[in-house]
């Protein structure tokens, strides 16, 4: 009788511990998404972010990548960026903002039929270089452009 009660108590305690872990954020679905390059997105330096997202920070400057961004962004919270690569065999792309707290904004893996063209909008904390890095045939190519920001988009 007494023994059973112990077992039951233990069981409910264990269940309680799991529940607490979930609510404490220890077991959030984040753990499931191992594919997301956490280190790269949390890296504070461009080189570290590149190594995390593209496997290397050794990028050759190339004029075959077209980076379209405004010269002056009035609002740093919404800066339209378009990257087009004319390098054959482009398989992935990353867009970085050099002086952001965490430079890596996004990485794109292209399918076999997908053209090397990405357009999106990023946040910029202050005036900085925007860097587009493209991976083609195992090598990295990059291009950059300075965007002046009059109102920052990070922080409040």
């Amino acid at each position, binding site marked *: 009788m007494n023994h059973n009660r112990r077992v039951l108590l233990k069981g409910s305690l264990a269940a309680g511990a799991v529940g607490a872990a979930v609510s404490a954020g220890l077991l959030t*679905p984040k753990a499931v998404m191992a*594919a997301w*390059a956490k280190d790269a997105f949390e890296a504070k330096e461009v080189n570290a972010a590149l190594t995390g997202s593209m496997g290397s920070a050794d990028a050759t400057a190339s004029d075959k990548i077209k980076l379209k961004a405004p010269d002056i962004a009035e609002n740093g919270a*919404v800066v339209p960026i378009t990257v087009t690569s004319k390098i054959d065999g482009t398989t992935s792309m990353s867009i970085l903002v050099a002086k952001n707290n965490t430079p890596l904004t996004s990485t*794109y893996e292209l399918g076999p039929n*997908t053209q090397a063209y990405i*357009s*999106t909008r990023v946040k910029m904390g202050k005036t900085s270089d925007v860097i587009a890095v493209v991976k083609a045939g195992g090598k990295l190519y990059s291009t950059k452009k300075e965007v002046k920001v009059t109102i920052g*988009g990070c922080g409040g």
Partner: protein
Amino acid sequence: MAKSIKLRAKAKDGTATVKALISHPMETGLRKDKKSGKPIPAEFIQEVVCESGGKTVLSAQWGSAISKNPFISFKFSGAKSGDSIKISWVDNKGNSDSLDGKIK
């Protein structure tokens, strides 16, 4: 969260241009609540996947530096009008949404 995605895909000469707008707060986790002074917890999309005809055409990983209500546009070839297209996202809190559409 069923209506967070707006999708427009058009095919012309075998090339599809996809434009998608997702409504999402994209909080960085660095901003502070002006009244209480407490940081607003991070909430941003981490993964966006687009499939067409059962094949993945684009898989993107996003950080918190993508603007609020993100917009993304891309192109892929070998597409024709009427092809199915599916776009889905997952954020850092585990929320997700997807939308099925057709290429016009």
